[in-house]
């Protein structure tokens, strides 16, 4: 007989119990919990450039702030001497809102219109219940805390025209999922640490079923309705030893396939596990930003060999800002020169199926909100036979907050 309601697995019970604790704990405040009038109830920005660090957001009607950014790309891209792409693309037009409903409730939202309108999606829609700088609740469509870049990826902030391969091809930035959890900021001696910990719907079977090029997380992040009644867990801890220095550790684990239908075990439970480390620093007069991630995916026995079980990626970029006030008519203007090295290995058990590239860019900011970027990228992809494919791109982009 088929049960009317699916039975939650042991791990799901644990996740649900954890969630209940997260929800109930704030109802019994201790002396450490701030009073509504206490300004420490409002945590400062968790991630520089993240959802709560948008200086361009302008107040409307008192408590609502509205803003956004636009991102236009001009691209000339070649592969093995053949022009792959040459043209213009309104890559993104994003609309952001922030509403302070009360001292304790803050609502954030971001709607993304991508590729000239081909894709419209709700990238972020979260309700924050602010209690204490160290202990707050969040629910909604959340940016999954998987590396710093997924949390802070606005085009005017991203140094290059393109996002890192790690973000576009491995993690699938902007990776957002419905979920619920907590976040906060904890002073530790003279330093500060932040954390975000959420239960989310997780990935779905699309990472295998919808992907024709092997395992791709990017094909399975659209899990608006949970597919397996087993929440996944994602979290990030960041440590700030000094201002402008940040070390983040992120993790994600959860089942991605539909292994139980109406209480019946219809498949093996298969997991996705992701670990990520990110750094941001200022050294030798340069700003450094980097991230690395490893991915493990349980693959059905009949697909092993074709679909990767282990993937990895990294990027490291550095930039030097110069030329502040060089243009008298634009006193807030600056230039920056940047270099990025990056790579993604889509199948660590195979010699091929990877991409490596090096980018250099010269960027001009007439104001901090607006950037003109000119980038050159040279790279090499390797197919599953490990044959090289030479790639190069010249990109110009204009992006601005509004």
């Amino acid at each position: 007989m088929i049960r009317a309601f699916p039975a939650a697995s042991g791990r799901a019970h644990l996740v649900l119990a954890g969630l209940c604790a997260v929800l109930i704990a704030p109802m019994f405040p201790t002396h450490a919990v701030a009073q509504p009038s206490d300004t420490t109830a409002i945590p400062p920005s968790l991630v520089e450039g993240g959802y709560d660090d948008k200086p361009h957001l302008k107040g409307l009607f008192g408590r609502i702030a509205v803003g956004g950014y636009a991102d236009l790309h001009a691209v000339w891209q070649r592969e093995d001497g053949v022009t792959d792409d040459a043209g213009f693309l309104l890559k993104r037009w994003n609309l952001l809102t922030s509403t302070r409903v009360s001292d304790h409730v803050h609502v954030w939202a971001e709607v993304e219109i991508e590729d000239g309108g081909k894709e419209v999606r709700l990238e972020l829609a979260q309700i924050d219940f602010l209690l204490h700088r160290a202990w707050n609740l969040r629910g909604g469509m959340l940016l999954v805390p998987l590396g710093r870049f997924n949390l802070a990826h606005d085009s005017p902030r991203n140094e290059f025209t393109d996002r890192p391969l790690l973000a576009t091809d491995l993690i699938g930035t902007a990776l957002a999922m419905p979920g619920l959890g907590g976040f906060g900021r904890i002073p530790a001696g003279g330093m500060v640490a932040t954390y975000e910990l959420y239960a989310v719907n997780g990935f779905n079977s699309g990472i295998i079923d919808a992907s024709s090029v092997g395992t791709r997380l990017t094909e399975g992040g659209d899990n608006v309705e949970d597919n397996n009644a087993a929440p996944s867990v994602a979290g990030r801890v960041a440590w700030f030893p000094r201002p402008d220095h940040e070390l983040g550790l992120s993790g994600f684990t959860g089942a991605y396939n539909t292994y139980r239908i109406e209480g019946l075990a219809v498949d093996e439970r298969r997991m996705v596990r992701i670990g990520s480390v990110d750094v941001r620093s200022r050294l030798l007069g340069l700003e450094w930003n980097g991230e690395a991630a490893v991915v493990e995916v349980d693959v059905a026995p009949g697909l092993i060999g074709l679909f990767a079980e282990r993937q990895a990626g990294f990027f490291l970029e550095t930039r030097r800002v110069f030329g502040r006030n060089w243009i008298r008519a634009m006193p807030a203007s600056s230039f920056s020169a940047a270099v990025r090295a990056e790579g993604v290995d889509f199948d660590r058990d195979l010699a091929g199926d990877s991409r490596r590239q090096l980018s250099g860019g010269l960027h001009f900011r007439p104001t901090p909100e607006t950037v003109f970027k000119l980038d050159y990228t040279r790279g090499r992809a390797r197919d599953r036979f490990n044959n090289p494919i030479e790639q190069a791109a010249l990109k110009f982009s204009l992006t601005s907050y509004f």
Partner: protein
Amino acid sequence: MIRAKLHETTRRPRSRAAVVWAATLLVFSFALGACDRLMTTAPPGGDIFDAPLPGLSAAELAAFAEGDEQFGVAFAPMNGLGPIFNNVSCASCHSGDGRGRPENALTRFGLAGNPMREYGGPQLQDRAIPGAEPETVPSGMETSLRLPPPVFGVGLIEAIRESDILANADENDANGDGISGRPNYVTPPDFLPAHGGSGGPALGRFSRKAQVSSLLQQTVEAYHQDIGITTDFIVEDNYNPLASGATVAADRVADPELPAAAVHAVVAYMRMLAPPEPGPMTARRIRGREMFDQAGCVSCHVPSFRTGPSTIPVLAGRTAQLYSDLLLHDMGDRLADGRPDGQASGREWRTTPLWGMRVMRDFLNGHAFLMHDGSARSVDEAILLHGGEADSARIAFEALPGADREALIDFVESR
């Protein structure tokens, strides 16, 4: 003096900005000027496996591009992959449109000439989408590993007149040279007569045992058997006969999964693929060709054919330097797989064309995987595996002085 200094400090940022802009423009101009070097360069058409034949019309090139894209389309469970299969796309097996590697070789199995269809034969599909069960080789079966062959030049092979191929046949070795090439006449599948086939036995030209008579058949069956994709030509999925009957629903995509137009696009693409150019004839290669002739290799590896008429004008009346007679030969015990295919016995194989040898390693990451199963890693090893009708040629090769052997190998590797 103070005024002059002030003037200098106010001018300096402007000049710096001008320098930055000038440098940017310089870099940009340099990039445009040197774009070929900076923006990657295309290898010569004769050095790749996926170049179109020269002389194609714009409309034919459009069809070529369409087929090229379809050839690379990879399938996933969501768009029809499986339920049982070997790989996800044409390009996944044919590296750069050339031959495959042992890792993606297909396994054929059977017993005493019986294809063992009740056990899932003649081809093993060892992968399956979730919900389906992959096949395994039942114990006691004879197996044969088959490396995916190159797909370039097949349009030229198709355009060779049947009479020209048969002219080299000598089934009873009437000339007494020990070589008795014979054609493989095969029964075409039911869907072929409606698409230009006669319906009766046809001369097999393609695949390792010349067991396939048309490119349409090869393509349709590869989609069906290798990728698990149904088409307008074969509308029912391939299932593991030993799996539970309930798993037939694992592939939820409606059949046919691929329209006839997509299949025809791939066929047209393959027809128009040019074989790579052979290398220049150096003195050593000229000597190597002499040794190739003298050892008797040329008896089966016939240097060229002239094509007959074709619906694609550039394929007609062309010289195809394939180095194969496209006939079956007994290759001896070491290469025998015991598995008949059409009229081909378990000891017979179609003479493998040698064109493309020059750039083969470029698309196999520096390796050479020769013979039907990829077991030979060099031309030398491949020759030494020859037996049966090729015994005398192998013995002659072994007897050659070192320099002449190397010259022969150099000649073969330059094709």
